[in-house]
């Protein structure tokens, strides 16, 4: 399994994700967005965090309309694992690979802090190592992370909510919601379940020295399922 971590101008978590993946023995490299063939040939794709195109127009809007996204879409259709983190999640929404949009945090502030997440479904590559209801600590770092779905009922009925922001008791309260996301949604999967978009940064929770390595079990979605 070789994972392409797509770097746009302004991506700044690309190397961190590649390094975190290599920690769990998943071969991964950053790939410049113009090297489309490398994305087409990758076994998995990560759209990393950062500020692609300086967040011009809207976060993720420009990157979503670059030709490499057609390759990403093809990989999704082929069933390959594809994960958008933070700005990458915004890109997936902006390109309609997953439903919904990200609006400015209700606080109107950039929020950079650890948050608690509850695993809402394990029927995805990125949460198959968890049990439903498990909670993990993974940091966020964003100003536009308020998730607004197109069709909340469809997300819930199809079991496509990946994570919710929760408090220390595992409850999705308003206080635990760092950005005002509808229904405390912190991550979702697309219709085909192999593509996920999440605002928290699993690569920033990838080593005990960082306070938590809970994110490695998310990134393990890119390892060979037969490895467990």
């Amino acid at each position: 399994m070789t994972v392409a971590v797509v770097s746009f101008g302004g991506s700044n978590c690309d190397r961190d994700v590649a390094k975190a993946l290599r920690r769990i023995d998943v071969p991964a490299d950053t790939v410049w967005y113009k090297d489309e063939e490398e994305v087409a040939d990758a076994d998995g794709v990560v759209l990393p965090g950062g500020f692609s195109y300086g967040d011009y127009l809207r976060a993720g809007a420009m990157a979503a309309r670059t030709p490499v996204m057609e390759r990403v879409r093809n990989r999704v259709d082929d069933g390959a694992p594809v994960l958008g983190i933070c700005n990458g999640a915004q890109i997936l929404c902006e390109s309609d690979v997953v439903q919904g949009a990200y609006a400015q945090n209700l606080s109107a502030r950039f929020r950079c802090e650890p948050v608690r997440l509850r695993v809402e479904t394990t029927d995805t590559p990125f949460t198959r190592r968890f049990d439903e209801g498990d909670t993990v600590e993974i940091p966020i770092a964003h100003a536009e992370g308020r998730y607004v779905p197109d069709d909340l009922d469809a997300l819930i009925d199809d079991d496509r909510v990946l994570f919710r922001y929760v408090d220390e008791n595992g409850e999705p309260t308003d206080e635990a919601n760092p950005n005002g996301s509808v229904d405390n949604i912190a991550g979702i999967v697309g219709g085909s379940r192999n593509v996920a978009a999440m605002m928290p940064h699993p690569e920033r929770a990838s080593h005990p020295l960082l306070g938590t390595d809970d994110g490695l079990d998310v990134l393990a979605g890119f390892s060979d399922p037969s490895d467990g």
Partner: protein
Amino acid sequence: MTYEAVVRVTLKGGVLDPEAKTIQRSLNRLGFGVENLRTADEYVVEIDAVDENEAREQAEEMCERLLANPTIHDYTVEVRET
């Protein structure tokens, strides 16, 4: 003909606008009694088209495909000859 399209993109009713709330509070600290304020983004696009209708259609397509996000935005288009 060359036309100028003025595109205004606003948040849909029901989508909260924290930037507007912050500006409103600030205005009220300055002594204004503002009860409602909304933000909008405006884009002024020069468009070559055979007539005003075609210019409008082009501008609307720009909104649908890039300038607005249909999940959270409404938009208006005004077209005038330059």
